[in-house]
């Protein structure tokens, strides 16, 4: 998993819960005498450990923390990579760019990155839906990102998630339905 996810997570923890909590989460979740850099690649299990430690520290459910992290991640990306939002007017158009454009750019920098896949289709009701498939159980993170995207564009949409076959969190269908 790309290091930027780890650095953004720890920045979120530090900003929301303080430096001491962030230090304890990192010390227990990743007991190594080193930190993370955004250009590095780390085992995704480390992120899970960090989230679990944060949940212990704060008493908040893991799912809520990951959803919140997803939102944070979207805002961070939109701040750091504003070009990706240029000319895009709604969340559906943006989400359709994730697979082809954003993941394409990531692959240029990190050819070995293992990225989740998104496939798009109209739902039986005629709405937009996207299928998430990943080797890692981060459907909650994807849900947080999608929610933040809808919020960012101010679209009147609900994101309804259905978990599909496979390891929990690795395969899900997100339907964007009008409110």
């Amino acid at each position, binding site marked *: 998993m790309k290091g930027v996810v780890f650095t953004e997570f720890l920045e979120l923890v530090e900003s929301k819960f303080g*430096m001491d909590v962030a230090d304890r989460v990192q010390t227990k979740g990743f007991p190594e005498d080193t930190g993370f850099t*955004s250009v590095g690649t780390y085992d995704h299990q480390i992120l899970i450990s960090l989230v679990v430690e944060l949940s212990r520290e704060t008493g908040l459910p893991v799912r809520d923390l990951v959803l919140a992290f997803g939102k944070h991640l979207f805002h961070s990306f939109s701040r750091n990579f504003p070009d990706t939002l240029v000319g895009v007017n709604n969340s559906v158009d943006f989400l359709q760019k994730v697979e082809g454009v954003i993941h394409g750019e990531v692959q*240029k*920098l990190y050819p070995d990155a293992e990225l989740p896949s998104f496939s798009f289709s109209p739902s039986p009701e005629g709405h937009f839906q996207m299928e998430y498939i990943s080797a890692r159980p981060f459907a909650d993170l994807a849900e947080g990102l999608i929610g933040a995207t809808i919020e960012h564009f101010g679209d009147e949409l609900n994101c309804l998630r259905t978990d599909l076959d496979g390891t929990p969190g690795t395969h899900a269908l997100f339907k964007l339905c009008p409110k």
Partner: protein
Amino acid sequence: MVDSEDIPTTISRETLERVLRRERNARKQAEQLLEEKSRQLYQTNQDLLKSTQALADEVQRSKVIFETAAEGIILFDQQGHVELVNPAAKRIFELTDDDCVKLNVNDILPLTDNKNPTSSICFYTDPLFLMGDDHEIVGRRKTGGEFPAEFVVAEFSHNGRVAYSGVVRDLTRRRFLESRLAQAERLESVGQLAAGVAHEINTPIQFVSENTRFLKTSFQSLLEIFSTMNQLLEKCVDIPELNPWVSRVQAAIEVADLPFLLSEIPLSIDQTLEGTSTVARIVRALNVFSHPGTTEFQKVDLNSELESTLTVSKNEWKYVAEVETDFAPNLPRVMCLPGEMNQVFLNLIINAVHAIQGRKSEGLGKITVRTRRESDRVIVDISDNGTGIPEAIRGRIFDPFFTTKGVGKGTGQGLTICYNVVESHRGKLTFDTIEGEGTTFHVELLLDPRPKGTAMTEVNEEK
């Protein structure tokens, strides 16, 4: 300077946070820089990949052109050392890969007028040759055979040295076609001339024939009158006052040798009729053989065509061989170009005559012309008891310009023309031969060579 002992051992939280913030920002800047450099590296790599691909495509295209060019391409250095030969050049010169090692361009394109053939200087790199536009020379195949070739050389610079690329073209086929065209034009002229002559002769020979026949029947009447007059003469002998007249008539009969005339004149008339009949037959054969202006397929009676061809070629064979024909009765008509097929038959007959002339034995040889039908085809066999074809040259007798005949006797095109004409009729021209005993050529023709479903113009269908 301040002693280290003077530095406070405790650091405030604010100081630590400032230090941490600076370090974090520095790390982020380093990460952004790294990403930017990575992006540039990616773009450079992509550009390089494109350039490499474009270069590879160019190399591939050049290679394909070099490998598939119909003309031979030879790259060589200033001394004529061959560096690269394309497949077409290998085909033209019959070279293997091994032959191309240490090959000099002078070996395969020798200059017959080269004053110094062993010179290490390659004539083809001479500016005079490079500038010239008449590049027809003689090429030499690995097997030793020579052929007319066109060789055009260009100079270029490669890796800092001068090199040369030569394009070689085998002109054998072009020369053959040019010569065939010239021959066809000659034949066409001769055909037209023959047809014209035949037409001009036909009319007078007809009235000569008719008048001779009239003379023959008239002479029969005169014979009867002569017989009656003879009886009258015998009666007049006994009448004294007519004796002087009888004597004069008898003297005139004796002077004219009337009995001889009466017996010989019918024979002369018959011989004249036979002669005019022969002339008429030759005229008809000439007309049939030449087929002037016939350029379309038509149904043809090959037996009749062969008869005509034997007639017009009689002067070629009558002192060399006796001809025996064995024509299949009711032979179906064959769809063909009669003028071209007659040319094939004539060439094969003349070839047979030459083969017989090449024998050591004396006396007339024998040419047999046979026709037969096999399934959907007709086969014409033309046999001779001549020299036969040596095994060593059997594979080359249909090659253009190949001949074993002496200078001025054979052009080496007769059998090639036969082969091409028969092939163009979708037929086969094959031969059986035994050296020293003779040869039989088999002309195998489809009854209708046209592809099924096509509608070629048929002229004179019921001719």
